[in-house]
């Protein structure tokens, strides 16, 4: 099997150029979709039959929670590719994902807590869903701390990649926790092999918001990865020629 195409894609100057081209597309498309979904979710969508207008925090909470897991899987896959194929750019991509994923995790926990106080009657409970999501935040923070503790970038890459791979087990646990154990958190409304348990008028803005968050992630990773490439390649000839 020939991996030349793969290694070409992984060459820093090539990647730096491509990322620079696609980032604005991601950015503007994400802004447009998030604005549309905000208006649709806050104004046009009907109120819930039990929660009234309080349910609308769902439009931030559910996409953030989804992205917190999505970003982790991307990070772990990038770290695994970096370990197997010894591609520095893959490690750089994993490093670029971590702070974004950590932010999404924090946002999911914070919005869930704000919703939980009036609806459940508590800010926080130690049920399987909430605890595993909190563990995800610590995995992101641990990953970032581990990277920061090495002076040698290559050792930082390898050690943190192992942590990223070990932690990926937590992602299916978060997702299935509500089915495996009795939790205070409700089971899935959308991602199940059945008709979604959420009315179509509320589901459409949710999907638009998730698409907007995905594109935002693409934009943020592209930007961070460009910065990461600049930092790692600061002494390389192609950068000096470009400057």
């Amino acid at each position, binding site marked *: 099997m020939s991996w030349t195409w793969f290694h070409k894609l992984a060459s820093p100057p090539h990647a730096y150029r491509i990322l620079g081209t696609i980032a604005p597309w991601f950015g503007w498309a994400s802004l447009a979709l998030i604005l549309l979904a905000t208006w649709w979710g806050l104004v046009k969508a*009907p*109120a*819930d*039959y*039990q*929660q009234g207008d*309080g*349910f609308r925090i*769902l439009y931030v909470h559910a996409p953030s929670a989804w992205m917190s897991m999505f970003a982790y899987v991307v990070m772990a896959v990038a770290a*695994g590719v970096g*370990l*197997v*194929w*010894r591609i520095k750019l893959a490690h750089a991509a994993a490093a670029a994902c971590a702070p974004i994923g950590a932010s999404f995790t924090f946002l999911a926990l914070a919005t869930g807590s704000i919703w939980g106080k*009036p*609806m*459940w*009657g*508590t800010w926080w*409970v130690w*049920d*399987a869903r909430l605890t595993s999501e909190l563990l995800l935040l610590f995995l992101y923070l641990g990953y970032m701390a581990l990277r920061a503790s090495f002076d040698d970038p290559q050792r930082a890459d390898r050690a943190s990649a*192992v942590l990223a*791979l*070990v932690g*990926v*087990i937590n992602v299916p*646990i978060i997702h299935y926790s509500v089915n*495996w*154990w*009795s*939790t*205070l958190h*409700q*089971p*899935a*409304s959308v991602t199940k092999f059945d008709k979604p*348990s*959420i*009315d179509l*008028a*509320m589901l459409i803005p949710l999907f638009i918001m998730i698409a907007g968050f995905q594109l935002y992630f693409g934009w943020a990773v592209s930007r961070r990865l460009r910065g990461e490439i600049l930092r790692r390649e600061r002494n390389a000839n192609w950068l000096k020629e470009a400057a």
Partner: protein
Amino acid sequence: MTPRQKRMVTVVAIVAGVGIATAFALKAFNQNLLYYYSPTQVHAGEAPASRAIRVGGLVENGSLKRQPGSMEVTFILTDYRQTVPVSYTGVLPDLFREGQGVIARGKMDGNRFVAEEVLAKHDENYMPPEVADSLKPHMDAANSATGAPATAAATPAPGST
């Protein structure tokens, strides 16, 4: 095997190994991960009587009573098989209502469960009020169906609203 294939095997082994270890650990701690007991489990003696536990179920229709002049409420928790009478003093969450899933934390005192905290459990259904109204006959029918096989004495009448 080339070095790259070896590294590939290592990565797969890490993920598989941690996965299996986690699966065993979670299986061992399964009981501790249960956030609450059902009324049936309480009646079967599966919940410890000496320390504080959580009991989760639906608030039986027509069972909610407020004591005049105090914050005390009493209601009956049901899982359509067994019931547990609960008393609680304090503020109830927004989603608390009859027919709604709730989780009460407290201790058994004889036959009565004295709750220190009552949390409302939200189900996974989101819909506008009009849709909920149009679904109501179906939902009551579904509730009666799940309640039907349970023992007659302990079964509440879910369709009574």
